[in-house]
């Protein structure tokens, strides 16, 4: 049950410059665990010391912020979905 994970420019340095990855997982949390175990340097950019997703990195399932999903990171996946990581940027 692979899903597509879209990696934003600022974090591509930690995924060997890959823009998009196919990862396994039965829910969002498992997919993100797979992501950070494959690309260890990503972990500190996605999670704080308490293991919570950082407040300046948003994760979307399709077009919905997972903060607004009833089950949050535990939302089940059936495969084929797209998960996007969208960090805060400030350039102008």
């Amino acid at each position, binding site marked *: 049950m692979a899903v597509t994970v879209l990696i934003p420019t*600022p974090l591509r340095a930690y995924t060997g410059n890959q823009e998009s990855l196919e990862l396994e997982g039965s829910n969002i949390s498992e997919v993100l665990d797979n992501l950070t175990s494959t690309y260890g340097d990503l972990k500190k950019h996605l999670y704080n010391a308490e293991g919570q997703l950082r407040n300046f990195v*948003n994760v979307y399932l399709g077009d919905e912020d997972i903060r*607004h999903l009833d089950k949050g990171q535990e939302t089940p996946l059936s495969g084929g979905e797209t998960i996007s990581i969208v960090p*805060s940027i*400030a*350039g102008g």
Partner: protein
Amino acid sequence: MLDLDTSNTELSREELERYSRHLILPEVGVEGQKRLKAGKVLCIGSGGLGSPLLLYLAAAGIGRLGLVDFDVVDHSNLQRQIIHGTSWVDKPKIQSAKNRILEINPYCQVDLYETRLEASNALDIFGDYDIVVDGTDNFPTRYLVNDACVITGKPNVYGSIFRFEGQATVFNYEGGPNYRDLYPEPPPPGLVPSCAEGGVLGILPGLIGVIQATETVKILLGKGTTLNGRLLLYDALNMKFRELKLRKNPATPPITELIDYEQFCGIPDAAAEQEKTADIPEISPADLKERMDAGKDFVLVDVRNPHEYEICQIPGATLIPLSKIESGDGVVEVKALTNGSELIVHCKSGMRSAKALAILKEAGIEGKNLQGGILAWGDAYDPSIPKY
């Protein structure tokens, strides 16, 4: 719809001619054009985003444009900040912008605030305007703009860019979400590089800035569907647009007063970080030149990125990027390279080389930091080195 009083707004014959392509659009018409003329828009920053959006807002006939910026035009701005011309280098950006705006449209009133936007002046400045457009380039000012918009009840037309990617939305409009609903907290300093450090495709702010201008005009007209509640993502490299839902977050605390935004964004921590590198010994370009001319035994390491090395080099320098030193591989390389010789490290202006030396010091390798980096070296001895 924004409450705008157009009862005293008239369009002259010259203005009717100027705006004729607007006037024949049923969505604009004379009443819409009067709304644009009655509109007061404040633009924070006249840089990459501010340049294109100010040009179009001026041409569209916005009656009053306010500009907040304290910066002067630099050569490195001209690749994207298209409101400024070469003859304005070293002169204030807002003067340059006003000059260009009035050249495009003399019917526009331009009010200048040559100051840094601060918690102490934001509410006073915002109070006079209908819409605020965020064209700033840093997190503290973005949170300040957001909070001041929430407190004064102004829509915040948001855009931001990084390398080849842009984001745009409309915050705090018709009861919709604000910046803190999207990102409750900023990243710690240094985690996300600025345009000066990370680079930016010059055309990118053009597109995002024009989206901001479009949303501003639509809000003034009260027509169409704005980006309120939607975050637009743009990827220039792959020419892809995406849209994400943006909702109010019940966990966002109410914004009732302005705070210390430097502290909120962890800037004092960055100052503490800098102190760590304060006791790294330095060497002046003159002393380096003396060692070179005397043929002394030393090793010069350049910790910039490879694409910066391509732009210019100091003769004899070995490239070992800071990222490599941070990951540990570079430390081993430096150790093998120096082998008892004196170590001198440089970067563009001295910050990254100090950081590299602090890491090397922990590994037992002492060295000196070239004061002012390759730019200072260029000033003193090599006019061919560009101020990139």
